[in-house]
């Protein structure tokens, strides 16, 4: 690293640091909720029946953004698969220098993977009641997939199952959105199902259903990204 380039980096970061400092010194936390936050705070409970306001915003009020977000994830998984597909190893071929995972990891994975999958399902089913939801639960499902891959690097998940879960949940998600537009107030409206008793697991209309679909889709997307990396020549 030549000295002048290092200096340029420091000068740029110093300018950015001054900008951040100005932002911070002029920052005063709000004492009251702003208008949109106030609307969500006052109306979420009777409009969506969801206890967790963040979930209500993500799944219902800003549901279209979430659909876009899931699409971005799908595109990422597809592009990662495309970019890495040139270096996929031949089937059943073991790469150079593969380390055996060891007894502890193999046995531990056998106990932990089902528990991790159960926990992921718990997190996305309770997304409208507790902190959590489809994205978090899907990431937990994928962490179970990582553990299974670490314990047995030659293991392959079934592509057809992953694709079935991925496309099936995506299709159901959009169908629920369209049903919402026909039967209730608009696309992805959750009031197609009864709102139920506030604070119970079967409340919030279609929110638990939508978040379960998002959880399955996110878990399948992440697993397929991981699998693309795992199938390259150098990994396995």
């Amino acid at each position: 690293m030549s000295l002048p380039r290092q200096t340029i980096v420091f000068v740029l970061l110093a300018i950015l640091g001054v900008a951040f400092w100005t932002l911070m010194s002029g920052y005063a936390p709000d004492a009251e909720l702003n208008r949109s936050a106030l609307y969500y705070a006052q109306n979420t409970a009777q409009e969506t029946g969801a206890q967790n306001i963040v979930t209500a915003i993500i799944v219902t009020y800003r549901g279209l953004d979430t659909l876009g977000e899931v699409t971005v994830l799908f595109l990422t998984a597809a592009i990662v698969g495309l970019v890495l597909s040139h270096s996929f190893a031949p089937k059943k071929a073991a790469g150079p220098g593969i380390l055996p995972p060891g007894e502890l990891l193999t046995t531990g994975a056998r106990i932990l993977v089902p528990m991790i999958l159960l926990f992921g399902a718990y997190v996305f089913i309770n997304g409208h009641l507790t902190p959590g939801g489809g994205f978090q639960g899907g990431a937990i499902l994928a962490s179970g997939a990582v553990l299974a891959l670490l314990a047995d690097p030659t293991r392959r998940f079934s592509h057809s199952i992953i694709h079935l879960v991925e496309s099936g949940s995506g299709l159901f998600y959009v169908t629920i959105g369209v049903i919402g537009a026909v039967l209730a107030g608009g696309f992805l409206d959750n009031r197609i199902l009864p709102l139920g008793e506030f604070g119970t697991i079967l409340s919030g209309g279609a929110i638990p259903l939508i978040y379960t679909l998002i959880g399955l889709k996110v878990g399948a997307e992440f697993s397929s990204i991981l699998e693309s990396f795992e199938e390259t020549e150098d990994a396995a």
Partner: protein
Amino acid sequence: MSEIAMFTGFILILMGLYGALTHRDIIRMIVGFTIADAGVNIVLVSVGMMAGRTAPILDVIAPADAAAAIIDPVPQALVLTAIVIGLGITALMLAYAYRLFRFRGSLDISEFRDLKW
């Protein structure tokens, strides 16, 4: 409290950018970008913090009192989105880094001069 989180977030952004700009190794640059991404998320969440209030979950608070008892839920929803997109970006960067490594047998950014002017 929110000032501490915001300060940490800004420091993480600067650290991550410093790492991404000074390192030659592509994996280290990706780690730098990931650290900066975490910093941006921390800053965003800290903006929604309000002293003396609680999380936007109405399990013990009655929905009628919510307006005076909860913090701003919007930044949290935005950050949830940002985290997922950040993960997608990281996965893409790693996939490209792997392809570059297969292509040139090196992860040193100075070996890739094709688009340099």
